[in-house]
């Protein structure tokens, strides 16, 4: 079966756009209630439980409330930018989803429909490019509000997002080194086992690129402005920062943008490191569409559904991790965050890229072919690197308090308790 082409392709694409925008928005809704329920569970309380069964309809109620609330427009605000900012906050997070493959290809009478909205050849370079636009929403919202707190939030936000953008992009370089391709569907295929076609690694990249996953996840966390990186909002310091002056649906759009961003980052981690829609320990779902149109494997509609489920499950678990982190950790301080980004992450990622590059060079010099053993060697290297990394990031070494130096950095915690 050949991939769809021509009019059918256009129609299928429009269908996918509509379908997946709807699904994403629904997912955002579910993510908000999910976060509140999980947070309630973690904090030993019920969470929303008034509207609908288990409070599931709370999001609908909130939506109605936000639509009906008064839209405020601060006198000092710069109107056009003030209105544009929420749009710019929500836009990148949603269109990022276009390059994420979320299920195995679906066979239809008109041909094979790939379950990705736009399989652009530049793949995740698109992700990085579009992801950077998100900073405009924050910076613009903060500046256009005409409030000093918002301005500080906007400044923090733009500095933070630009800084972590670098680490985010660099943390994906080892992935390119490994796959030699930037297309997301190809990256998913590379993590599957095939008997025919070009060689693959037969294992999820979480193993050969463990440290890369860590860097990507941390940078992603910073990109989404969530705790411990929620400094642009920093409720206690900046009274929610760049969206202080927003109300009703405009405020809601910032929130939707944030949750959409969380889901997008979770989906990206899934695709890049957790095998995308691949179902583990089962080879039946291994379907690959080569660039010349050849299809390896046997696509069926139920496999599409199953892999969609697998993708959804992995993404949800990652969203759970996001929520878990948010309700556990305190917040960084602004300078600590920048130090972490520029003075640690950047260097560490660069070193990591070099190490991986040399290891790959070595493996290929030895002559191990791409596949399980290749990945295993990389995994061992990563384990060693991870050990070193977490040792380096231990208490008192990386994040420091004030410069007054009343105590030597870290370590003397117990001395505070005298008799």
């Amino acid at each position, binding site marked *: 079966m050949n991939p769809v082409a021509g009019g059918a392709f256009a129609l299928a694409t429009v269908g996918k756009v509509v379908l997946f925008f709807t699904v994403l928005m629904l997912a955002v809704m579910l993510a908000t209630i999910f976060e509140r329920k999980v*947070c309630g569970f*973690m*904090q*030993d*309380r019920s969470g929303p439980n008034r509207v609908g069964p288990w409070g599931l309809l709370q999001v609908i109620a909130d939506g109605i409330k936000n639509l009906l609330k008064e839209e405020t427009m601060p006198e000092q605000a710069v109107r056009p930018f003030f209105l544009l900012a929420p749009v710019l906050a929500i836009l990148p997070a949603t269109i990022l989803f276009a390059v994420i493959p979320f299920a195995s290809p679906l066979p239809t009478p008109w041909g094979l429909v790939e379950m990705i909205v736009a399989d652009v050849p530049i793949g995740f370079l698109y992700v990085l490019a579009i992801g950077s636009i998100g900073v405009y929403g924050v910076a613009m919202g903060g500046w256009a509000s005409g409030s*000093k*707190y918002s301005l*500080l939030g906007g400044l*923090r936000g733009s500095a933070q997002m630009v800084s972590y953008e670098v680490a985010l992009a660099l943390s994906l370089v080892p992935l390119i080194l490994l796959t030699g391709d930037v297309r997301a569907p190809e990256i998913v295929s590379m993590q599957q086992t095939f008997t025919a076609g070009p060689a693959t690694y037969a294992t999820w990249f979480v193993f050969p690129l463990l440290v890369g996953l860590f860097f990507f996840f941390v940078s992603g966390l910073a990109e989404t402005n969530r*705790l*411990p990186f*929620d*400094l642009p909002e*920093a*409720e*206690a*310091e*900046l*009274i929610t920062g760049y969206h202080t002056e927003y109300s009703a649906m405009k405020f809601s759009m910032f929130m939707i943008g944030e949750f959409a961003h969380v889901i997008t980052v979770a989906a990206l981690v899934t695709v890049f490191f957790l095998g995308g829609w691949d179902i583990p320990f089962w080879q039946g779902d291994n379907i690959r569409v080569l660039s010349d149109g050849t299809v390896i494997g046997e696509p069926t509609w139920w496999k599409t559904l199953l892999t969609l489920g697998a993708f959804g499950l992995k993404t949800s678990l990652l969203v759970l991790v996001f929520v878990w982190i*948010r*309700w*556990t*950790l*305190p*917040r*960084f*301080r*602004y*300078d*600590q965050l920048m130090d972490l980004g520029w003075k640690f992450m950047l260097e560490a990622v660069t070193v990591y890229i070099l190490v991986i590059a040399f290891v790959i060079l070595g493996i290929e010099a030895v002559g191990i072919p791409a596949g399980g053993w290749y990945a295993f060697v990389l995994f061992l290297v990563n384990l060693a690197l991870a050990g070193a990394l977490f040792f380096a*990031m*231990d*208490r*008192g070494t*990386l*994040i*420091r*308090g*004030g*410069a*007054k*130096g*009343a*105590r030597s*950095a*870290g370590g*003397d*915690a117990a*001395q*505070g*308790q*005298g*008799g």
Partner: protein
Amino acid sequence: MVRVAPLDGKAASHPSVRALRERFSEGARRVESDALGYPVVWIDPRINGEALRFLREAPDQAYDLLADLMGAHAGIGAPIQVWYQLWSMAHGRQLRIACEVPMHDLELDSVTDLWLAADWLEREVWDMYGVSFRGHPDLRRILMPENYEEGFPLRKDFPLRGRFSRSAQVSRALSRDLIDIYAVDELEMAGYAVTDDGGVRAPPERAAEGGAPGGIRDVSPDEQPEDALEGEPILINMGPQHPATHGVLRLVLQLDGERVVRCSPHIGYLHTGFEKTCEFREWNQCVPYTDRMDYLAPMLYNIGYAGAVEALLDVEITERCRVVRVILGELNRILGHLLWLGTTAIDIGAFSVFLYTFQERERIYNLHEAYTGGRITTSVTRVGGMMADLPVGWTAAARDFAATFPETLDEVERLLSRNAIWQGRTMDIGVLSADRAVSYGVTGPTLRASGVAYDVRKARPYLGYEEYDFDVPVGTAGDVYDRYLVRVEEMRQSVRIIEQALERLPGGPINIDDYRIVLPPKGEAMGSIDTMISHFKLVMEGVRVPAGETWYSIESSKGELGFGIVSDGGTKPVRCRFRGPSFINIASLPELVRGELVADVVAINASLDVVLGEIDR
């Protein structure tokens, strides 16, 4: 009017009293002993600066803690009294210096160069009594609005009501005159020059616009630190409505980027004149005012106030009452520290801790409710005892709390103590050295975190605290992290005290049996004519407290909580001074935050554990 108690041996032999008499024979002519037996030296107002300098600087005196500086006014026409309550850390000695300042010459030497604490305290005396202090760097109103022109509220010629001209206040609020809207230091921060006669001169760039008063935006560039990038600092208001100021505290911050160049705290938004109101209430009627000041640990205030009045009455409360007060006091210390822990964690971003601590607070509130019927405003004490005996089953519930509460504390400590981000946010932040802390008059956990083991429970035990076995945790670095550790450890020590107290809780009556002070039981009042007369007199007139004065202090959850009380023998106090520890502690904030980041301002402000109710009173 003031009872001149016979000078007993203890007060007369006080080494500082002797030294003062030798040195200032004429100036320190009168020495009294207050209700607690501590010496009070009345000195000539003209030599107050000299005498206090001697007490501060002479090595065998070394009164390094100015615990309180308060005014009192006996009546219309009488001189204003100013009390300096001193404590020497090195010698463990207490001394009160008092001056009578005649109304025609209301001037004293400022002691701000001896104790940093005197800055705000002298401002308060100026604000309330109109006593001006020579050499004070910034003598202006502190609790009342800057432009308040109606007089000095705590003077006896200032009536409780009827003086306040609302229309004058409103017209001033609506005025376009800058000096009526902004504080002087804000105007100065913004580059405006304020002349002595209250005129405001706009900065040059504003003058070009006709000097029209707009919002304050421009800042003089000479405040910038050396490494500042080109650009002008911004001025932001943190508060009075801000989630991290824990009440209506307003901090005017001058920022260079995110770094604080200057911070000016403004208080008084919650000023309700409790001290003035108390002068118009019977002794027992003052109790409900006390728990509204520190609504986070209300019973400590109740207990302290009752203790102060009982000291004046010179009555011994029953053993059961003492132990019950210890239990309640320690429960409330935990209550206050838990709120501190939760809100500080939320300020630093750890939200969940807040919910954990509030669940435990809820359990203490349930104990409050079971005993008093109220949860926040408990009003639990009466002069001479408690409002009632403990209800059946209460001690079992308290024991259950003491047994299970440390688990939550362990959980919170696991979340925070060794957390890299938490340590990074708190270590070396807001460092207050021991010397500075004492000079600022900072007390409580904040002082102990700086390494000074001063706890009123140990220094001048009350309610039999010397009979309990507990430790006073002391920090080393004096930063936010140490304040956190000290408070967490104090909660554990409080649990220890509660357990010991519950163990020893004796039976017997909770109130004393003197029906001139406590209400007799209804049945007895109906059965005997003598008791009925007592009941009637107590209800109609209230307790009569013999003339005298005292300064009685306890260790509240926030620091040394002092009650400076003067009675003229009537049923109402002449002066009811509440030395809220927060008021003194918060005065150190500008120094602590200078040069730190906005995020640290939040952490440092939280670490001082202030409650605006007792700051503004």
